């Protein structure tokens, strides 16, 4: 119910009264209300819940989180490589 889906703003609509936009959800297009994100513009990724954009996806934060996790993954790989080496083997 509280699910919000990330989508990209592809068109700002000229609607009277309420600020609306056309949003691309991976090929499915729906209208979303931008009244709560007046600063959102073309090309921005927004999280949409019941037809309302409630928050912008912070691209830097998204990249940072993902990078941190990737580094953790690489760290795990390093540790796994170390385990494969024979500690008694003389290099």
């Amino acid at each position, binding site marked *: *119910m*509280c699910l919000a889906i990330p989508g990209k703003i592809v068109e700002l609509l000229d609607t009277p009264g309420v600020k609306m936009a056309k949003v691309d959800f991976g090929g499915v297009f729906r209208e979303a209300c931008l*009244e709560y994100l007046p600063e959102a513009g073309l090309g921005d*990724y927004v999280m949409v819940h019941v037809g309302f954009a409630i928050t912008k*996806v912070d691209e830097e934060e998204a990249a940072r989180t993902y990078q941190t996790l990737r580094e953790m993954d690489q760290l*795990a790989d390093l540790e796994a490589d170390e385990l494969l080496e024979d500690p008694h083997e003389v290099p």
Partner: protein
Amino acid sequence: MKYLDEYRDQRLAATLVDEIRRTVTRPWTLMEVCGGQTHSIVKYGLDELLPVQVELVHGPGCPVCVTPLEMIDRAHAIARRPGVIFCSFGDMLRVPGSHGDLYQIKADGGDVRIVYSPLDCLKLARAHPQRPVVFFAIGFETTAPANAMSVWQARAQGLSNFSLLVSHVLVPPAIAAILESPRNRVQAFLGPGHVCAVMGWSEYEPLAERYRVPMVITGFEPIDLLEGILMAVRQCEQGRATVENQYARAVTREGNVEARKMIGRVFEVCDRAWRGIGVIPLSGYRLRPEFHAYDAERIFDIQNVHATEPEICISGQVLQGHKKPHDCPAFGTQCTPQTPLGATMVSAEGACAAYYNYGRHLAQVSR
């Protein structure tokens, strides 16, 4: 799809599970608050990947689930009135009241419509000026700005045939009620990411401090959930109890200021009954007095509608983390998504329905 696929990466998930395994030294019980999170956890089997010391119990954050049977009966009483166009989000239509569901009412000739957004109801109200258009406004803080906007716009556009049947609930008072219970088992919370996208997380800081319980605001994808669990377990192991934000790409401390302003203009906090739990003080929203003309409970005479719940159902204890779906003798036998007996089976986001839909009624899963 961007911002979805990368958070479903199997290899990263395995890395996070390993890291949780390395971090944990003793048993911890964590609760994910939101029904959407419960659904993801069970769908991807994340709880079964975790080390045995980390137990997930499932919280009360499914608004369809916690809407009282009595309120559903009131909705049905309105939907059966001749001339009424009754609008709802799709997941409410299958929820049985004491006498059938909204699909049954539609089949019997009632005008029941599924809407994507509450703003769709305003289009209907404009197109049918002689007919009352009623929207079943359920949900947590995530949905409140949308529902508030519908009333605000109805007034601005002079639409007098539109009203809301309000059954809004709030997360922080429910968390406090769970922590106050003498039977509480929860030692850390995964906070509701999209509720906090609207409300921010400052309301959760006094809870973390007062009850000495870690809270990690968490997203909904497998990687989000596993990272949230790791952050919560780290806090538990280190003896810390603060609010941390895993879902930084969507949530800021102050939330959505414009949305919160609109909620405050249209709604006020009130006591609310939660299905399976009972009344929690100051745990919901109702329309402010200046919007009483848009309050379906005042427009339609439905105060005399009362309902009683089946006694066998343990959903209240499931919603508070005291029990799991398998602890119920009716789970998967008398009680299924087709014939739900209570709160946690009525919606796909309820813990019992999620367990059932992903086949957990077929094998005895111990946790």
